[in-house]
Structures are given as C-alpha cells and as structure tokens.
C-alpha cells in the first residue's frame, strides 16, 4: 500500500538482506518470482531491472555506499542524471537542504561524518521520488543518537513523499515504528504483525 512502512526483522543470518536484495533485483533467486509495480522482476534482464530500479526504487544501505569520487551534491544528482531527468543540480541541492546538509553540498564523503553520509544517502534515495524505498539496516554503522536522528528523518521524508518503505533492521524499537513487521527465521517468514 503506498506510504506503508514494513519492517523485516530477524536474527543475523536469517535472510533479511537477501530478501531485500531480491526485492530490488540486485540478486537473482534460484526459484520463485518478484512482482514490482505489476512487473515480473526476473522476467526482465539486468538492464530491464536497472531501468525499473531507476523508475521505482530508492536505496539506503548500512554502509552508505556513496561514491567517494563524487561530492555530496553529485552523489545525490547521480540517479537523476542516470535517468536523464532535468534540473538535477537544483533538485539535489534542495534535497540536501531538506536533510540539513545545505551547507555541505561540495563536501566529499570522506570529509563527512557517518551520520552526515547517511543523510546524503537519504537525500539520494528520495530525490527521484521513488515509489518504494528499501533500507538495509540504515543505522547499523551509526551510534545510537545519530542513528535515532537518521531514522527520524527517514520516517519524516517517507511520510512527506508517500513512499512505501521496506526496512530491514534488528532493532525492535525501530521496527515498532512500522505498521507491519515481518519476522524471518532461517530464511522463512515466522510471523507477521
């Protein structure tokens, strides 16, 4: 449902990230299929899936995954430019201001703190106005206070953009903020609530 937030929880190694990778079409399943916005994800080739990602998906990773060679604003511009959209620089700058980094547009990832890097990643994820945001342990590499700030920001932006959020976490408190919670045990859904 648009705007819905789903948490995927489970112990380390239970298959949370694998599930997320499959949902995004970053990994290929040995069997089964994934429907994304009405399209059979694995009925498409790699480039087809990439095009779908460009159109529909936003990502937030545990380890940020910013391109070190690009400045903050260039990292945020990248998905827009890849999709061939206009006004990338303005939209990226606006989005960075939204995450509180309006003063750090030209900074490179290595000169930003972990929290700041994750904010850039959030800006990059939301700048394309995706229908679905996939977040893989977004606070996993951050201390508690910083992590809480990032989560707060993510939920705010999610609500503003009416994006569907799928959040992988092992933090029950964060999971509790989502409407639905899917628990994985050894690769299987153990419970939903």
């Amino acid at each position, binding site marked *: 449902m648009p705007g819905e937030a789903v948490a995927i929880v489970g112990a380390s190694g239970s298959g949370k990230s694998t599930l997320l990778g499959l949902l995004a079409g970053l990994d290929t399943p040995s069997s089964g299929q994934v429907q994304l916005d009405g399209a059979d994800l694995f009925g498409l080739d790699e480039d087809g899936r990439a095009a779908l990602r460009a159109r529909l*998906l936003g990502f937030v990773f545990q*380890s940020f*995954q910013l391109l070190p060679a690009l400045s903050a604003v260039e990292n945020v511009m990248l998905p827009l430019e890849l999709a061939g959209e206009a006004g990338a620089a303005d939209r990226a700058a606006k989005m960075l201001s939204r995450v509180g980094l309006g003063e750090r547009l030209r900074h490179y990832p290595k000169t930003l703190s972990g929290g700041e890097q994750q904010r850039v990643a959030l800006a990059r994820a939301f700048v394309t106005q995706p229908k679905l945001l996939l977040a893989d342990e977004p606070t996993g590499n951050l201390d508690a206070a910083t992590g809480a700030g990032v989560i707060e920001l993510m939920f705010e932006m999610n609500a503003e953009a009416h994006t569907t959020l799928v959040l992988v976490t092992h933090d029950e408190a964060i999971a509790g903020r989502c409407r639905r919670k899917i628990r994985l045990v050894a690769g299987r859904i153990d419970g939903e609530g």
Partner: protein
Amino acid sequence: MLRLALRMLLRDARAGELRVLALGLVLAVGGIASVAFFADRVRQALTREAHQVLGADVLMTADHAWTPEFRDEIARRGLSRAESMNFVSMARAGNETLLAAVKAVSPGYPLRGKLRIAPGLNVPDSDTDAVPPRGMVWLDERMMAALKVGRGDAIEVGRARFRVGAVLTLEPDRGVSFMNFAPRLMVRLEDLPATGLVQPGSRINYQLLAAGEREGIRQFEQWARARLGRGERIDSLENARPEVRAGLDRAQSFLGLTAMLAVVLSAVAIALGTRRYTQRHLDGYAVMRCMGASQSQLFALFTWEFLWLALAASLAGCVLGFGVQTLVAWWLAALIPGTLPPPGLSPVLQGAATGFVLLLGFALPPLLQLKEVPALRVIRRDVGPPRQGALAVYIMGLAAVFGLLLWHAGELKLASYVFGGFAAAFGLSAAIAYGALRLIGRFGRTGSVSWRYGLANLLRRPHANAVQIVAIAVGLTAILLLTMIRGDLLDAWRERVPPDAPDRFLVNIQPEQRQALSEFLERNGVERLQAFPMVRARLVAINGKPVGAEDYSEERAKRQIEREFNVTYLSALPADNKLTEGAWFGAGDLARGAVSIEHWIAERFGIRIGDTLEFLSAGRSFSAPVTSVRTLDWGSMRPNFFFITTPALLESFPASYISSFHAPAGDALLTLRLSQAFPNLTVIDVSVILRQLQFVMDQLIGAVQLVFLFALGAGVLVLYAALLATQDERTHEAAVMRALGASRAQVLAAQRAEFAVLGAIAGLLGSFGATAIGWTLATRVFQLDFIWDGWVWLAGPALGVACVVLNAWAGARAALGRPPIAALREAS
C-alpha cells in the same frame, strides 16, 4: 615471529590479499630473470660468435714453429687443439700462375665457427666440419676464376701436385691482414712437407689454436702468456677486429638497457601492488593494535611477511623466467644459427636479488606508514595513517631502482641517463597529467551523462588519476622506446654497413696513375673514386722524448710503435670521422702544421691535445702538435687513418694513394682485369669479410630483438597491473550505479569515456617520454644519428587508448557479470 609471519603470509595468500602484489613481483622477477637468462645465453653466444672470428678461444701466432711444450700443455689441460701454417706461394694450373695465400690446416680446424664450401662456382654452399682431404686443395672463388680451374682439375703448389676438391666460400677467421690480400688456397697440414716450401728462412706464420671450457681456457691463456718468446703472440677477444668488438659492445649495451627497463617496469608494478596491500590492511592493523600488539612487533611481523613473500615470489619468478626463456629460445631457435649455450646460474641470483631489493625498497616505506595507524580506526574508519608526500615514501624505492639500474647496466653513465630519463618523465608526466585533467574538467563538461560522469570521475580524483596516468605512461614509454630503439636505433646501426659499402681496397696507387685508374673504373661502372695520399711513417718521439716498444706494456702498442703507420694529409675532416676533443684544422693550423689523431691510438700511447709528435719517414722527419682527437667508423669500409696531418706538412714526402670502391654486382673478374691493367696495384677484396661482418651483425641484431620482444611483454603486463590496482573501486562503483538504476550501457560508457581520456593522455606522455629518452640514448650514449619518428606520436595515444579501453572492457565485464549485491556486500 618468523613462523607467525609465514602463517600470516599463507593466510593473506589464501584470502587473495597478496594476489596483485605477488603477481606483480613474480612477473617482475620472472621478467628480469628471463631477460637475464636469455641475455646471459645470448651474451655467451655472442662471445662464442666473436671467437669464430679467431677460429678458436685462444689463437697463438708465431713467426717460427711452436715448441712441443705449448702443444702438450693444451692436451694436458684437456682443451681441443688445431694448427695452421700460413704463407704466400705461387700456384700453377695449366698456363696460369697466381700468387696464393696458402693455409695448411690440421684436422679439427677451425675450433670455433665453421668453414663453408661449395662443389663449384655459383653453386649453393654449406657448412663442413672437414678440412681438405689428403692430396686435395680447396680454393676460394677468386682463385678458381683466375686459374680457370674447376673441381677435380690439377694444380701445382711447390713441388707437389694436388686436385681441386671444393670452392672455399667462407673462413670464419679470415681477418684483414696482408697475408689475406692474396686469394686463398687451403691444404691439409700433412701434405705440406711434400711441397718442399717449408725451408729454413721461409716467411711462415705458425698458428696454434685452442678451445675448451671457459675456466680452462682462462688458465691456459695465463700460463701461455707468461711463456711467450720473441715473435710469439696471443690473440684473444680483446684485440680481435675492432669493428666486431664495437658491435659486441653495442649489443651488450642494448641488452643491459633491456634489463634496466624491466627493472623500472617492475618497480612500478610493485609500488602499485604495495599500495593496494597497505590500503587493505589498515583495518587488520588497527585490530591487532587493539589486541595489544606493539608497533615494533607489528612492524617486524609485516617485514618478515614481506621477506617470506619476496623469497617465494623470487623463486616462482625465477622458475617462470627459466621456463619462458626456454620456450622463447626453443621457439626462436631458427633465428639464432647454432645452438644457444645453456644458461648459467647468475640470472637466478640476479632475479632473486632484484626481487628482494625492489620489494623492500617499495614495500618498507608504506609499511612504516602502516605503523602510524591508530587503533581508533577500528571504530572510526575514516582515521588512517598521517599522509606523507609520495616522494618521501618512495625515496627508498627510487634509491633501490637506481642501485639496480647501476648494477644491471654496470655503467654509471648509462644508468644515470635511463634513471634521469624516467625520473624526468615521471615528474613532468604527473604535472602535465594533472594540468590536462584540470583543463578537460573545465571545458569538457558537455555531452551525455555517461561521458560527463566519466570525465568528472577523472577530474574528481585528479591526484590518483595523475599517478595512474603516469604509471601507464611509463609502460607506454617503455614500449615505445623499445619499438623505437628497435626500429630507429637498430636501423641506424645497421646502416653503418650499407649494402653499397666499398668492398675492394686499392693500395699502392702511384700519383701519376690516379687519372687513368679513375677512368678505367668509370668504364667499369664505378663512379667518383676518392683516393687518399698515404705516407708511411714511424712515430719516434712524443714531446721531444723518444718512444719505443720498451715504453709500453701492451702487446699491441709494442707492435705498433715499431712499425710504420699510414699517415694521410687532408684539409677537410672525412665524413665518417667524428671529433671527440679539440677542433679540426683551422687556418692557423693549416699554415703551421698540425696532427689529428684517432681516439684509441691516443689512449694507447697516452697522447693528449697539445702534445708534439715527431715522425720519421724515409729518413726525413716531421713534427707537429696534436690539435684534435677523432673516432673512426670501422664499419664504413673506407680507408681509415690513425693520423691525419695538414697538407703542407707532408706534401713534399713521397706518397702512394689508397682508395676503396664498391664492385658492381656480377662482375667477378673486375679485380683480375684491374690487376692486369695496373700490375703494380694491390687489390684487396674485402667482400668476403664484409659478408661475414654483415652476418655477425644480423645475428647480433636478431638476438637483441628477441630480448626486446620480451621486455615489451613485461611492459604490457605492468600496464595491466596498473589498471588492476583500481579494479576493486570500479567494481564497487559500478554496483552502486547499477543499484541506482544505471543500465549496463551507461556503466560501460562512463568507464570507457574515463579510460579513453586517461589512455590518450598517458599515450601522449608516453610518446613524449620515449622520444626524449630515445633521442638522449641515440645522441649521447650510442653516438648514432637520431631519426625523428612522427608515428610515435600517433602510436602512443592509440596504444594507450587501446590498452586501457580493452582492459576497462574486460574489467567492466567482470564487474557487471556478477549480481550487484555481491560487489556491494564485499565493500561493506
């Protein structure tokens, strides 16, 4: 600690952490070892080749029969032995008679090289291990033609009658000496007494030849030298024909240069490998610090690990090098006539030592840097070692490279030129690369997103990219330099004996004959005969102090000082001569009188500019100061003079003239007609010698090319290693772009754009560097004319783009072939 280090090495190796470094090192040592192995074998072959010029490893010559003492000693030491006797005598066949240079040889002659014979004139010849059988003689082509004899015809020498057995087409040891001016007649030594030509007082040249393994020969030569009597001498490689020696020296310079290029290329590969290794080990280091390891403990641990690595990689490299050179030697066996001698052990030591020095020179400084990693990095990944200037880190590496260059070159000048060339190319390249990137960044930001991102990527890490461009430029410089040297320097070298080089010398031309002779030759297709006046004179005093054989210790100097030199007088410097010191005759010199002398002679007799030389010619003396020193081109086959004076000084002395010309092809009897028309002339046919010289040169060039081919391969490998160094990063970035929705085409195009620009800049720099170094080597080291090659400027960028794009294509395929999630996980 040693064992722990070994375990760490094995763990790192298993984890694939050492792949690039170890591969770089193995390739480096392998490259150096194979070049060294091959160069060692080729060098041995060259030495053997040069020994063919003597026909032996040691050639002993005397004007009387050798005592049994020497013969027995050769046998006693287990060396092989042969003998020959040389003299001039008349030979008769039918109504024709001719002065022949008779050579009587024992079976086994020559000990080095082979005779070639043919069954008749203008019939293909072939190698033979035999000497003329009893009752037979072998004649050279000129003799066959002049005596009008064929195979099986009778010929008389002295009181004996022989039959013609074959046409002698090549003697490996036929040098330029008066004896050889006459056509050759070869006979078996046992047949000589029957001729009755060996009488007391006959002018006969007795030669004793010995050959065998190197140490035995060296010891025998030492033994024999101590026992030489009057009129006895030993020829070894050192005083063999100067033009061959010059060829050998130059070939060895080329081989040394190739080894040096391998050293520089290896250094680049190892520097790149170490950089990757230390970057990947920052975390592990911090973790170990957390677990309580001290800095010195860790430093020792890593040092030992690297030493183990050096040992393992050097061994592997030597094995690889041996294997590859065996393959190359086998594959190219047809190019090198005869079998290559087996390789020695020294390349193994060379390779291993090079591996250790390179690894320590380039790995230790970054390791020292690793020591500074704070334990805090465990928590904060952005905390790394304090940054230092690249020069400070690699100063040890540079010192190591220079040491190795010096060691391999064995010559400070050559090592300095190559090192300086590369250092300058490095510094300049880095600066130009950085500038070019900035420029492109400013003006190149239009076009598709992939193109712009490719360029932006280049610009956004200008330092790293400048370094990478330089690394690739070094590889390209080496490749272009090697191809340029092969193409241009070897051409220049080969041209020293052009196909139309003079092959006949005319000696004893009387002044009044010059006109008639010139006309005769013109009628026979020879144009513009240039004749040099020649006055025979003995050098009797230097700066007023009389000189004689007793003043010199060198054998050759003793001989020369007692004989007459051929002195010429000229007002213009001959074209093939080059001044090394002083100035050519000026107006003042021409009025006062002056001498120009040859470089080696100046060295041999200790003559300097300004010294006054006094000569004696036909009872009259003349003296003049030395105003210049020249080098001669021995390959030119034109009359060369050790001493040239100003005309006024010598014009009043009785002189004959000397000249040389190239005989028109197909006119085998020109020499004969010439001798009939001008009976007083001595015609020296050097075509056989020329042919032999050309053959030796071709062999040398072939060998040099083989070794070059190999260094060229090493250059390509280093290029690959340089690009591999950023492979991780690129794979990861490709995955992130894929996750953000980039298509394959977009990822590929971005990388292609980036690499194409990178390759083009590197290629241009490579062209520049290679041209600069090539010019320096040609003009300053090898004294050849540098041929400006415009193609290099196209080949460099083309090669750069091709190599880099090809590699990027392969790398991107590898990066795109895996699910993006794998690359993303690896990075996190």
